[in-house]
């Protein structure tokens, strides 16, 4: 069963990728969707067993690398953590597969698209089911590759190619840290298997290592290096710039890879490595701070963006920040819970916005929308559910997970915990404002698109709406249904068991009533405020923008991260590359190397041809000269 979960998507990818031309578009669409759906159903079965019977297993497929002390297996590790991820990946992936049949209807390369999607699913499943860091890295790079391929899916668009390359290179920075972390683990433990590494961790607490001339704690260093990888993959601050650009890819891709699954791999890794992180308070604080900074900064950027997908992308960054600071305060299970609920409502929002974009014939600017809620009622209501869930409206899924984070942070009763509470609430307000801004500007107000007349706006087909409805059900119910299982009292013993290590027992006190009420209250107040500001009376906002031009520009330009990187890294490296290319390569190596040599050979070749002039006395003369040289040489020595 576990084999089928992991390998069915691979079969789909191979059949669709290599034989898609033979079998036809329709077949490969249905075939891949079917296989992924089966995989998902099986994932549910496994999840059920894990929940009910506490099922856990580690299946070794075969031994991958055996070299000296290094022994690495291909394996499928099933426990609470991986089965949760299986379910998340499976649901979103299968729904996205089905959705894509409708969304990509006008595209010429359907089989390629479906193949990439299935390949991605396979890579993601190997990532989450790994029992060692090597296979994890394989899956990590596999999803990175698929992400690259899918962002650049419309490879005829230069911006898509640029975005794909950007995503790949930024991730390379993270992966470099990640790989170093794995090397360090192998160096210290002589193994890369989770269970063996985790078992040895308590014995090396306090050990120091010299890294780049600085004495650091080994565990802290391992954690930080691994976390750099997470920052790249999960688009945390400094390495977040690729995610908004990744929206160049088709919308289903954004929903699957850049919202629900791949970007959460970083969170998954931190939770998976909780037995390491728990021993380094410094690393946890670092995770916490990075998470907070990301959550706050990206939320502020999202306030002023105009591209519907970019807003949601920044929102994703922000929510990932939530997950990280939840992990950073030691509430790994809450982080997983937020990951779980977030997958539903964020995929819903993305696919919903995809539906909007589909209706507007590939228009993505929310300033050119508005007033269409009666034309596309299903999309409207589904987006409404997504928005409510994201903002944390009471009793929808986001409410349970997001509030739980803030409550746990409060109960932590430490300085950093209070910071988290503050930032968490502040970011929640921002989230609410930008979400409603997006919602109102898209569906309400005046219709303001001049290219398409409003009569031509029509609802998306059923094949796109059906997955949305299922996701909406998840967005509404997943919080309420699973909160006891994931974060309820005793969940760490009954459900998570060995998959997450809590060094300090979870505090089960009740937080004061005001901390429970403050967030829902604030976000509910922000709905009418947003309505007023963005629809009723835009003048206030316009005036505010004019009087605070610089702040607005600062946010609109995304805190100038791209420009800064361009200035610090890209341009100098390009210039350096140009120097190496023009002066180093062409003018030095080529000129004196191959090119010069070729010219020399050509020159001598011409001489040699002329030398052979056909006169017999000339020939005889050459012979005698050669003979004389030999003779003279031999006599002289």
């Amino acid at each position, binding site marked *: 069963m576990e084999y089928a979960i992991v390998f069915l998507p691979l079969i789909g990818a191979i059949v669709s990728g290599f034989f898609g031309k033979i079998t036809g578009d329709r077949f490969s669409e249905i075939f891949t969707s079917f296989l992924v759906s089966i995989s998902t159903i099986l994932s549910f079965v496994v999840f059920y067993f894990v929940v009910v019977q506490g099922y856990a297993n580690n299946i070794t497929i075969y031994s991958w690398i055996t070299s000296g002390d290094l022994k690495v297996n291909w394996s499928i590790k099933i426990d609470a953590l991986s089965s949760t991820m299986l379910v998340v990946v499976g649901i979103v992936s299968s729904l996205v597969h089905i959705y894509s049949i409708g969304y990509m209807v006008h595209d010429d390369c359907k089989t390629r698209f479906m193949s990439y999607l299935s390949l991605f699913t396979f890579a993601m499943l190997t990532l989450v089911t790994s029992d060692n860091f090597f296979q994890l890295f394989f899956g990590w790079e596999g999803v990175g590759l698929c992400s690259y391929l899918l962002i650049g899916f419309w490879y005829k668009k230069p911006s898509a190619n640029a975005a794909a390359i950007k995503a790949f290179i930024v991730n390379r920075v993270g992966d470099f840290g990640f790989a170093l972390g794995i090397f360090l683990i192998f160096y210290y433990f002589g193994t890369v298997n989770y269970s063996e590494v985790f078992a040895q961790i308590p014995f090396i607490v306090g050990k120091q290592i010299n890294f780049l001339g600085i004495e650091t704690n080994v565990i802290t260093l391992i954690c930080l290096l691994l976390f750099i990888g997470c920052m790249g993959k999960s688009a945390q601050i400094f390495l977040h710039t690729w995610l908004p650009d990744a929206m160049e890819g088709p919308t289903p891709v954004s929903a699957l890879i850049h919202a629900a699954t791949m970007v959460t791999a970083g969170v998954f890794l931190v939770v998976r490595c909780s037995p390491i992180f728990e021993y380094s308070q410094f690393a946890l604080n670092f995770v916490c701070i990075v998470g907070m900074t990301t959550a706050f900064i990206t939320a502020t950027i999202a306030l002023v963006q105009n591209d519907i997908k970019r807003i949601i992308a920044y929102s994703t960054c922000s929510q990932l920040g939530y997950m990280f600071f939840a992990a950073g305060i030691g509430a790994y299970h809450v982080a997983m819970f937020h990951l779980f609920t977030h997958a539903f409502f964020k995929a819903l929002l993305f696919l919903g916005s995809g539906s909007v974009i589909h209706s507007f014939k590939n228009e993505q600017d929310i300033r050119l929308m508005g007033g269409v809620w009666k034309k596309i009622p299903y999309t409207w209501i589904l987006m409404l559910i997504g928005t409510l869930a994201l903002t944390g409206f009471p009793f929808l899924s986001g409410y349970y997970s997001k509030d739980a984070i803030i409550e746990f942070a409060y109960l932590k009763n430490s300085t950093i915990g209070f910071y988290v509470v503050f930032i968490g609430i502040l970011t929640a307000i921002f989230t609410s404002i930008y979400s409603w801004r997006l919602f109102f500007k898209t569906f309400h107000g005046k219709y303001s698109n001049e290219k398409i007349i409003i009569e031509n706006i029509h609802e998306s087909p059923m094949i796109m709406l059906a997955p949305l409805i299922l996701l909406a059900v998840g967005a509404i119910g997943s919080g309420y249904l699973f909160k006891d299982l994931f974060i309820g009292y005793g969940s760490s013993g009954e459900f998570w068991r060995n998959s997450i290590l809590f060094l300090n027992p979870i505090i089960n006190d009740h937080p004061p009533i005001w901390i429970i009420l403050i967030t829902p209250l604030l976000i509910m107040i922000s709905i009418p405020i947003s309505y007023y500001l963005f629809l009723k009376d835009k003048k206030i906002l316009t005036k505010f923008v004019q009087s605070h031009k610089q702040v607005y520009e600062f946010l609109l330009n995304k805190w100038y991260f791209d420009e800064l990187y361009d200035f610090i890294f890209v341009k100098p490296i390009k210039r350096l590359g140009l120097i190496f290319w023009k002066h180093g390569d062409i003018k030095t190596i080529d000129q004196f190397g191959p090119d010069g040599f070729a010219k020399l*050979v050509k020159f*001598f070749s011409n001489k*040699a041809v002329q030398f052979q002039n056909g006169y017999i006395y*000339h020939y005889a003369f*050459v*012979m005698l000269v050669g003979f004389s040289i030999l003779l003279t*040489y031999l006599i002289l020595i």
Partner: protein
Amino acid sequence: MDQLNLIIPELFLTTSIMILLMLGVFYKNSFNLIFKLSTIVLLATFILLFNHSVDTSATLFNNSYTIDYLSLFMKALTLVACIFVMLSSFDYIKLIGINKIEYPILILSATLGMMIMISSYDLIVFYMGLELQSLSLYVLVSFNRDSYRSTEAGLKYFVLSALSSGLLLYGCSLIYGFSNSTNFDLISQNIDQFNTGSIFGIVFILVGLAFKVSAVPFHMWAPDVYEGSPTSVTAFFAIVPKVAALTVFIRFLYVPFINLVDQWQMIIIFISLASMILGAVAAIGQTNLKRLMAYSAIGHMGYALAGLATGSNEGIQSAVIYLSIYLLMNLGIFSCIFMMKRKDIFYEDIQDLSGLSKNHPIISVCLLVLLFSLAGIPPLAGFFAKFYVFMAVIKVEMYTLAIIGLITTVISAFYYLRIIKIIYFDDPKEIFEIDKNLGLKVSLFLSTIIILIYFIYPSLLIDMVSNINVI
């Protein structure tokens, strides 16, 4: 009589030549018959070679003639090569109008001369063999006597060859003067490196021999002769005499002159380097396929000589392997050249191959394999040939030779690849006539296939050659 038993192949060949000559004189227009009989005679001689056991090692006629494994292997190689050249050139000879009875008989007598050269163990016997071979070749080169280029080539070859023979003879007399003997064994006992006169003699003799293998700077005749003579003769030139010349090289260097290794090593290294470099560089500027093959031959002889320069058994063996594979590749290439004809006119320019792949895919693939092999690209036989030589050279720590050899390999790859480019990527020309000659097809496909699959079972050739132990 016991000794005569060992030279039955030579005796048979001699008698056959005379009988065939008589036949030819008395039967009018008997070219076809004589030609076929000659081929059969060569085949029979080849079989007779194995009349005595393979391991026989003996010297006959007052130590002036030797039968050993080296001579057996080289004679067999000569005869096989000769048979295939005969088979593949039959149609060409008839079409170009040189189908005279003298042609096959001259080839037979040249072969006889080579066999004597290969077995010679005495300066006089060696010279007799050499002259028998040379005289036949002079005539063959200018055999198409109505062609201006053929006669010019014949004259050039004759004059320059006479010059080199003169040098060689002078060297022989010097050696005789300083060692009191013409026998190889005795010479090796009587001369040493403190004897300036014998050093003179060695230089003279080596220059004469270098002329025969067309090593730089004694190569000047080769391009003109290759281009000028009828293609069938060029094929013969490119393939057969090299065997005898290289054998004589091995014999001279490793028997009579073995005490002067340091001296001749310098000479061989010099001519080897010069040949490799010139062969690679000068061939780039050529437009005629036969002329190109001449420069290619110069270069390849450079590699074979590099193997000889090592002064080790391994080096000799690598040179012999190199030669064997080189013959095979050349046989294939010339078979292709024989196929380049339209309406009874033969074409021999590189540009005539333009776009060959469109009209003649099979020939193109064969040429592709052969040219890649000549360029030394793995896993074809040509790569292994070079590999063995360089291994031997590196083992005796002659790094300069190895490095320059590798560089020239890269340079020479250019002109082989250029031909491939012309064949596969240029605009096709008129279709060539399909040849019906079976011998030609067999030579082409056999050589191509052996080169292609050599890497599967290389030990076959290596085992045969590994019995050659001259030192």
